[in-house]
């Protein structure tokens, strides 16, 4: 098992990673591509998907997905093991959250890959 110290170190590092990748995400999606004038995304989805045409931006989005998934579900784990203490509970919480986090990462990765492929076709 990974030690608590390592988990918390990754927690801090992913936090910093989110700072960077999140800024890129918000910067590209909100401030440049589709919504300069209005925030309603009323135009075409390809304005947003156009972002994915760039492999580096798509990669940074994948990184953001991984960072947020770890940071968020490790945070939930911390809250839940502070709520109640028993080895069984901690074991169950850790495994359940790992599974959920993995599902979210797999599903999100699929979205990014498909969107990237579609964007290539559109271009």
């Amino acid at each position, binding site marked *: 098992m990974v030690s*608590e110290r390592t988990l*918390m170190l990754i927690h801090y590092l992913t936090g910093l990673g989110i700072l960077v990748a999140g800024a890129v995400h918000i910067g590209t999606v909100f401030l440049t591509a589709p919504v300069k004038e209005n925030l309603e995304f009323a135009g075409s989805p390809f304005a947003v998907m156009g972002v994915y045409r760039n492999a580096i931006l798509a990669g940074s989005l994948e990184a953001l997905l991984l960072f947020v998934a770890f940071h968020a579900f490790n945070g939930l784990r911390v809250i839940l093991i502070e709520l109640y*203490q028993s080895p069984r509970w901690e074991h169950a919480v850790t495994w359940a959250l790992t599974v959920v986090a993995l599902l979210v990462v797999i599903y999100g990765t699929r979205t990014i890959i498909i969107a990237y492929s579609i964007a290539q076709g559109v271009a």
Partner: protein
Amino acid sequence: MSGTSEVLLRVYRYDPSNGGKPRYQNYRVPTFRGMTVLDALIYIKENLDPTLSIRYSCRMASCGSCGMTINGLPRLACFTQISELRSKYILVQPLRNLPIIKDLVADLDEFFNKHKLVKPYLIRRDVEEQENPREQYRQSEEELERYVQFAYCIKCALCYSACPVVSTDKSFPGPQALAQLYRYYIDTRDEAREERIRIVDGAHGIWRCHFADSCSQVCPKGVDPALAIQLMRREMMFGPSKG
């Protein structure tokens, strides 16, 4: 005693031998200048209700016996003047996060056990030296300054009672124990750094501190346990500092 003004004390009562249902009881107490909450409780015990249980000893904030929750915050009853509360109504409850023995007396066993857990004494590698010390250890002023603040701790359990983590995580050592861990860790005379780190490096150890700073807020001696915990965490993340 002028007795011109009065204060209403609403006191938590709980007697496990007598049904064991917690309840509150009101007492009207005449006040005088400089009167502390402890003075008021002693007045109640002497004049109004001898069945009230309180624990106190030195009456000058150096023994740490009379910690209780006064108007919602953990404070020392002897160190809290009625005038400073700015209220005609004072709610007195036992310390939170601890089992109650009777009325305002909290059971500190759990608290002291966690204090013992961090080995609050100097450890020398040399067993002979540990058992029968012969050497004299010299420290510079600077080396003393590193830990002396945390050595002011009187073990009153106010920080333990204020900590939001302790309230649900009973395996968390608590601010007092972690601050004492750092106090001995950073002491130049101590030789058990790795051992001390191992004690609190678990899932319910030092990493569960979220720096809510309530411990430092309520400490009557200015020990600042939150600072000690953060400095300890730095040592554990980046390796031991020099010295």
